[in-house]
């Protein structure tokens, strides 16, 4: 017990010293199963932390989760070592964070993709359905066969949310459009199987699809490759993937995880940290569709106008994009 008190005191001292020198923060990042080099979601977070490190020269520590029991352990280890703020990546960390954040009320935590309602936690959530809606519109306008498709990674609610927004957007352009939807798998391996992703895309092309949107992490690399090989169009996800196959990637549904992580760290550094829910939708530039030199020839002026108008309507609330996870159904 005495030992514990001493340790606690040391941590408290460490915490207070970090608070005293706000520009000297010691951030920690905990990734989910995918790991920091998954070329997708976790990597976006990693990039955000790297952006911060490059700009400020402040180093951070990170940890890649391997099994569910390590979630709490990793958070606790970081908190005990006086790291602050601690950014957790992925909705699966929510339960662990809820527990640990209560144990370390002085430490600032953030979680990406989930909500943890505690006074020392910033919850960052994205409105993926809004971004997917816009790329769904683009897909529906770009298709010449009136058939588009979707390749998801692992079959989980979050990915169905992408699919549902995509379908709604496509239906808004053309109510009779044919949409083929496939999930790669049901295990974590579904995120890292580009070969299967490519096969799924090819089978969709064989059924007349000519635009395919993937929300499948590294599996999507195979989807985009297949689209490029067969002269069809792919749509990237999470980061801007237009450059992977210039002229063959219609656009990318960009989820600004990197910006969110960088902003959180910056806010901690400049003492502007805020807790509570941070919703990153179209209005906050948390999700967007990518337009750059690699795909500008694919996006006509009409398409751009239509999508920009829809974006404004979504922001103003005139168009309501259905969120799959609210009721676990997709009416489209």
């Amino acid at each position: 017990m005495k030992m514990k008190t001493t340790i606690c005191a040391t941590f408290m001292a460490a915490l207070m010293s970090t608070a005293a020198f706000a520009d000297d923060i010691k951030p920690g990042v905990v990734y989910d199963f995918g790991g920091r080099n998954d070329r997708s979601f976790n990597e976006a977070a990693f990039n955000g932390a790297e952006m911060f490190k490059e700009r400020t020269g402040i180093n951070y520590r990170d940890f890649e989760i391997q099994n569910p029991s390590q979630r709490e352990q990793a958070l606790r280890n970081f908190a005990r070592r006086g790291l602050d703020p601690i950014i957790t990546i992925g909705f699966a960390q929510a339960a662990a964070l809820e527990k640990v954040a209560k144990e370390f009320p002085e430490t600032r935590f953030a979680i990406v993709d989930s909500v943890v309602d505690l006074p020392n936690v910033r919850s960052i959530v994205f409105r993926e359905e809004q971004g997917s809606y816009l790329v769904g519109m683009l897909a529906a306008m770009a298709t010449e066969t009136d058939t588009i498709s979707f390749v998801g990674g692992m079959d989980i609610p979050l990915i169905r949310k992408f699919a549902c927004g995509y379908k709604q957007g496509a239906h808004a352009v053309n109510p009779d459009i044919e949409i083929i939807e496939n999930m790669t798998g049901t295990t974590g391996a579904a995120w890292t199987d580009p070969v299967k992703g490519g096969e799924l895309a090819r089978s969709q092309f064989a059924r007349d699809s000519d635009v395919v949107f993937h929300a499948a992490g590294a599996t999507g690399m195979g989807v985009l490759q297949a689209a490029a090989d067969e002269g069809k169009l792919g749509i990237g996800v999470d980061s801007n993937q237009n450059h992977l196959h210039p002229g063959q990637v219609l656009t990318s549904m960009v989820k600004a995880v990197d910006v969110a992580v960088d902003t959180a760290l910056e806010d901690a550094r400049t003492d502007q940290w805020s807790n509570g829910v941070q919703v990153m939708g179209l209005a906050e530039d948390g999700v967007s569709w990518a337009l750059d030199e690699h795909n500008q020839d694919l996006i006509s002026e009409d398409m751009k106008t239509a999508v920009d108008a829809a974006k404004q309507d979504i922001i103003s609330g005139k168009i309501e994009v259905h969120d799959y996870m609210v009721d676990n159904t997709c009416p489209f």
Partner: protein
Amino acid sequence: MTKGQLPNWVEYGVLPAINLIAAFLVSGAVVLLIGENPLEAVKWLVWGALGYGEGVGFTLFYATNFIFTGLAVAVAFHAGLFNIGGEGQAYVGGLGVALACLAMDQYVPWYVTMPFAILGGAAFGAGWALIPGYLQAKRGSHIVITTIMFNFIASSLMVYLLANVLRPQGSMQPSTRGFEEGGQLPLLRHMFPGFDLGQSPVNLALFISLVACVLVWLLIWRTKLGYEIRTFGQNPSAAVYAGISPVRITVITMLISGALAGMMGINEVMGAQARLLLDFTAGYGFVGIAVALMGRGHPIGIILASVLFGMLYQGGAELAFEIPTITRDMIVVIQALVILFAGALEYMFRPAVVAFFNQFAGEKAVA
């Protein structure tokens, strides 16, 4: 002692130790290759696993999983069956545990729930092993293939159930709701406040796994059924000649094996997470194969091997924490090397050791 045989202490002590040392030497070389000090790495690994209360707790927690899955593989081994399906059986067993907890946790205390949870885990795990066992016994479909396939079926089934059926409304995570007190096993840190186990999730399931070890020992070496299992495993045709039914032994052994794997859910689902999570098995079922091989199919060996792998898991995590250049993938490499040397290459040093001891024994005979 006949030629080619080794005294027990060499067979079960020296040989595994040599394999282990070889594995660590190669791991050390890998650590050197990436430019870190292997001694430093070993220090963090051992300290992380055994150096402080919470580390010990986590080591024992992981060991509990490995004891269950290791026993499962070992029992099947004794009948000459290679059960690769521990992962899937544990996964579905977790469902059995979770259903018992979900049904009872709000009404009764944990000690009432526990027997049902154990039964549920064992029954579901056994059920998952039944079909491959039956197919092997009746149709000759190879158990290795069918159990591997059943791992995938288990995974798909659980994703479906967790994403569509068991998930509470509005929750993002594909998992069941958290269990109330009545569905949680007591943690050892609460049962024995005198021991410093930090915040580790090691729980009562550790003792359940030790009881399972004793029961498996009794079953295999002290019962008629165990004798039949071993006979069948060592020589199926002789077993048939002796009047042992291959169908019966195959199916029963697989049921026991699956039940043991399924009980892993007690530790993870009812003990640590207090909910059923997607992929909670995290490869423990596969590690069970290495544990059973390393422990030579004997409960004592399995306990020791489980603690070793528990140390690798917990110490490995600590190592990745302390030395950032050693990523979790490096830890997997080290674990894989241990599995390689202890499992796949277990006979590599054996001829040399046998030769050494035969010479030794020969000299003694002359003298």
